[in-house]
């Protein structure tokens, strides 16, 4: 068949070279972003991004694409703030429309205790220069008229944390845009290439074996989302305090504009937003047991419907169209592990993001690239060291205790 001439977005397929300056395991957002910033900021372009499947096939393409910078602690907020600030910058640099819909996030509060928790996040955000406000329920209703602010639901709405700088993007566009950027600088993206071993010599990274051949390299980053902990453990013997759980998300049939904000609720375990295509995309908590499958379950989507129809009752007249599952790699404090040059020289890891991996990918890529290029641990990343677990210094990113499984 005759082919029309168009350029592949992330370059033509290339054979795997026998050596690279750096190898990044995982063609998701964190891997691609790191490769991009290695080239942009540090001139390191001889980089291979390898993925067992396709780029963006893991968490990068399975999340609900919500971005925000209203985290709980001062170690986290600046990282997410910078990530948020980078969306317009990257849109321009990559010359690729990432479809950032800066619609703001409305995080509903359903109790006095939740209002207190919100005030902590909000005063933290404001102190650190991030816009965020505590709203009462009348203000909430004015912003999002579809909400039910009456008392006749299980968890009546008391108010909300309103975070105008947040919003949603088109997650696939971010993957493709970054891939385009990486290829533009000369980086190689190898899809359907599986890592089989990471080899060290005298405490240093020496090479990476893949299904397409072996690569000599002094530096390896593992940013393989839900699979990072297993790869790092099985190939390098470093055990991480990570539990992997399935998290599901789903969309309704497409609608004309109905919701103007990201709406989330801790008490109901739901977040939802209307995509630019018009679907209501929604997700919630994780499955209650660790596993590596991306299978969906019958009860999760049912829970979602029960919850949504309480505080957004009009959605009862909508139909769910599609549900899918992805992996969340959870740490005991719900903050990630970004570390490197510890245990093994030249080995870097960026994992344990749980379900925060999308919103953080841009700034994380930038700092991980700095770390890999300079071998200096950036101040921004130091709080996320793996060693904090040895020292029993959790980050407090979540107020409540987490316990994914007794075997964490």
């Amino acid at each position, binding site marked *: *068949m005759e*082919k*029309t001439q*168009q*350029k*592949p*977005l992330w370059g033509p397929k290339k054979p795997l070279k026998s050596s690279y300056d750096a190898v990044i395991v995982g063609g998701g957002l964190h891997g691609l972003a790191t490769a991009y910033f290695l080239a942009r900021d540090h001139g390191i372009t001889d980089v291979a991004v390898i993925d067992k499947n*396709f780029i963006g096939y893991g968490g990068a393409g399975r999340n609900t694409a919500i971005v925000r910078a209203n985290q709980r*602690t001062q170690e986290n907020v600046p990282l997410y703030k910078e990530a948020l600030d980078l969306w317009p910058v990257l*849109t*321009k640099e990559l010359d*690729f*429309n*990432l479809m950032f*819909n800066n619609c703001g996030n409305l995080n509903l509060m359903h*109790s*006095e205790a939740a*209002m207190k*928790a919100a*005030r*902590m996040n909000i*005063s933290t955000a*404001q*102190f650190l220069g991030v816009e965020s*406000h505590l709203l009462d329920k009348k203000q909430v209703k004015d912003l999002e008229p579809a909400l039910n602010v009456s008392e006749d639901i*299980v968890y009546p709405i008391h108010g909300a944390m309103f975070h105008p700088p947040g919003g949603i993007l088109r997650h*696939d566009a971010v993957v493709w845009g970054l891939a385009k950027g990486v290829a533009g600088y000369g980086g190689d993206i190898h899809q359907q290439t599986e890592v089989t071993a990471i080899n060290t010599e005298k405490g240093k990274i020496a090479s990476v074996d893949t299904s397409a051949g072996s690569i000599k390299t002094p530096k390896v980053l593992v940013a393989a989302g839900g699979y990072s902990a297993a790869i790092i453990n099985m190939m390098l013997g470093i055990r991480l305090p990570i539990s992997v759980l399935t998290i599901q998300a789903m969309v309704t*049939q*497409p*609608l*004309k*504009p109905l919701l103007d904000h990201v709406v989330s609720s801790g008490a109901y375990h739901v977040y939802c937003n209307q995509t630019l*295509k018009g679907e209501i995309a929604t997700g919630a908590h994780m499955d209650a047991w660790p596993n590596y499958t991306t299978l*969906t379950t*019958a009860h999760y*989507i*049912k829970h979602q*419907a*029960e919850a*949504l*129809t*309480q505080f957004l*009752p*009009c*959605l*009862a*007249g*909508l139909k769910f169209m*599609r*549900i899918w599952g992805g992996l969340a790699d959870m740490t005991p404090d719900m903050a990630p592990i970004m570390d490197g040059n510890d245990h093994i020289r030249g080995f870097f890891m960026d994992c344990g993001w749980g379900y925060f991996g999308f919103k953080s990918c841009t700034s994380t890529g930038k700092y991980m690239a700095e770390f890999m290029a300079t071998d200096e641990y950036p101040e921004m990343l130091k709080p996320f060291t793996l060693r904090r677990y040895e*020292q*029993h*210094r*959790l980050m*407090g990113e*979540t*107020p*409540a*205790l987490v*316990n994914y499984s007794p075997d964490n």
Partner: protein
Amino acid sequence: MMNRITNLPTLKIDPSKAVSLKYHDIPYQGCAGDTVATALYAGGVRIFGRSLKYHRPRGLYSLDGECSNTCMEIDAIPNERSENLPARDGMVVREQNVKGSAEHDKLSFIDKLDWAMPAGFYYHTMHKPAALWPLAMKQIRKAAGLGRLSPDFRQTGRFDEIFPSTEVCVIGGGPSGMQAALSAAEQGLRVILLEARPWLGGFYDYRTVQDDHAVPLYERGRKLAEKVSAHPGIRVLTHTSLVGTYNNGLVTAFRRGSSEDSFAERYIEIRAKSVVVATGCIERPLLFENNERPGVMQAGCAHRLLNTFGILPGKTAVFAVGHDLGLEAALDLHDQGVNIACIADLRTEGQNPDLLKALESRDITYQPGQTALEAHGKKLLTGVVLGSMDGSSQKTLPCDLLVASAGLTPVSGPLTINKGSVAYDAHTGSFLPDKLPENTRVAGRILGLGDPEAIEASGHLAGLQAAQDCGLDSAADLQKAEQALAELPGPEKGTDFVIGPVSGRKSFICFDEDTTIKNIKQAINKGFDVPELIKRFTSAGTGPGQGGIPDHNLPLFTALYQGSAQESVRPTNRRPPLTPIFLSTYAGRNHDMAKRTPMHDRQKQDGGIFRRLGVWRRARYFSEDLSCRQEVENVRSNVGIFDGSTLGKFRIHGPDCLKALDRVFVSDMHKVKQGRIKYTAMCNEDGCVIDDGVITKMGENDYFFTTSTGRAGATVEWIRYHTRYEGRDFHMVNLTDAFGVINLSGPNARKVIEKVVDQDISNEALPFSGVKGFSIGQNVEVFVMRLGFVGELSYEIHVPSSYMESVWDLLLEAGQEFGIMNFGVEAQNVLRMEKGHIILGQESEQRTNLLDVHLGFLWHRDKPEAKTVGSLALKQAEQDPDRLKLVGLKMQEAKVPGDGCVIVDESRIRGYVCTIRKSFSVDGIVGLALVEGPLAKPGSVVSIYEDECKGNLLKADVVPLPFYDPEGARMKA
């Protein structure tokens, strides 16, 4: 009914019963049995809506909801599949995604702008300059989406749910499904049979062609259906669409209610030992220019319009088909008066010779090896260009109906969403089931079968296989059934994937997303070279039809275009729900499964304002004054009564129980004595406090302890988990719901309780920290602990739940003269804060350890027999000066900051306020906070950053705890 053919034996409508709908404020008369779309079609409606992107007119194409063509707004509900939804009197129907009307859409010009919208064009446009994007986005939002939903919409009708279990669940009520159900039921098994249509029969039901015994297939189907319906072991659920299949035989579906039913829709969750998937086939859309022009429809659609609904789908028809079902449809249409201008058949061999003879006897032009290349007509079909695959021998035929169908493709979603797989099969030219999910069987056309005898034999076999899954030994029968099937005709030869020499500019591979062949080529050229990536880049298959149209064609076109083997591709992943399902149906009755204490109703009567706290509903306030001043002051000056029933309550006993307790509690549990309570806490491995409570010894190797409300559910597992390798011999009983707790607090508490108990409860007989059993009201056995959580003379009375109301009443009556009053959770919160007592979760967060909240005195470092959970971490933490520590705060000014405000210095956050109130018991505004070690010394001044303070910090002094009654004289009185 004037516009209906009423004498067909296959009809499923009742022409004598009219149904009236409104569309464009014009009444349309359908009849009972119609769907909304068939009623409108009979009334002359041909354009049902406009497409998502290009606003192309769209009409009836399939009758099984495979695309969004006939999605309409019905009774204010968007995106209803009008082709599936039974018509009901009074329905109000509107078209979707139009500016104007479906006939005259002002946005139809967009169809000409396709050159400006290649695949993924939005990623390359509208972001330069950056200021353009927000404006463009607004327009995109308006343009996107199909239906419209009012934020004030409220779903009406009853939504229900059932959870049946069964041995065998058969999905699909066609011939093979019915036979499978019968064969399984005849083995004595319970069977549930699901069918999406209102009747059984599948693709037999509208077919007049005869089997080898000269019985028309519809009759053969009805006989089977009668047998199925009469069988006591088979529960037939018609009107029931499949939603999902999951591991361990879980099948979900929903059933639409009818006018006679009490529910609008019912969610169904079936647990089966074996599942038979007999979902048959849908048709493969034929690809040519304008292949979705209203007037183009699939063979089954045209055939069923006539035979099921008595509607002539057109006057002059051209057929472009690739299988015998198309020829059958042509014959029936011809016999009812449709002029068949020509039948183009992709096939040059393999046709049923009887059908060819029948065509010949009717003088119908039949052109083997030809197909449709382009449909003509601006809004409605006016003609079609037929020709050979190479583009030769083209001719244009005028027509108002084009029956276009390339072949059949199995409905394999129920397999693939449950870890089954499909593989390309060159003989049938389709993706046939490959790996099946556990305990799942398949039967009928999904296997590629076409012969009626073979289809039913495969059903029989699947029924027996299902019986085997259920543990029945049917080896001999199975062998016979396998042999019988082997002797019958196997899968039918299907056509290869083909596409004529078209530009592809308006050849739609996905109708819902307006994705054309040209778009797919663009995507592949951009590097999106596998169906999963193409799906993401072009949106093909992500619309309301959920892949029904592109599922078969997309992977095969991808292979063809890239010159790769058809075996190397597979369809994109299907996702549940396989049929779109209302959120209201999933939500069902939406029970709130909360726990109520024994005092729930009484407290409600007394004006309690309730809150859901964890699994419980609890009375938080007893007046609209949310500061609870009256409740608080009454406890301080008289006596208050509080329902503490939600406390976790546990008995642990057995020879090793003390060792188990030593492992999880931080204290030396050997020191727990009879008649005394001990306050202690549990930590996790990080030394963080996870629970606190009191414990007492009931007898030899027999202890009773309480936990915090929120932790009660996890306690037993926690203790078992941490003693799992040591073979400890002990038992635990969760008594949380078996006992209620009444907390009687205040200086008058003893006077109240003295009136109702049978023993001496003086301070000497039952001192602070004492525990004692009593009989209240002559015969209710209770035990009473002297505690001081709120800082007053206080009794915690543990009462069997069933006696709670009686005991509560006795105390209320006894307390009348002492000013007894209810107090709620918030008053307790204020009272205990004044006393400097913490509530876990309020004065602690995930990372707060035992030492941080000054409970280090509870920790016993040397336990020879048990290493306390968390002790290692606590030893480390002792060396760490920067941790957040609990402190008392007293505001320097009159403003009460909100709970949760952060404590800051110039550049950093140094802590946060946990609970702070204007105190009614001590002077000023006091509260508890967690602040970094260096700030935690009494005498330091902290700055509080409240939200919206714009940098104006509030000052507070760090002061010693507690604020109230530091000597504890009142609680020990």
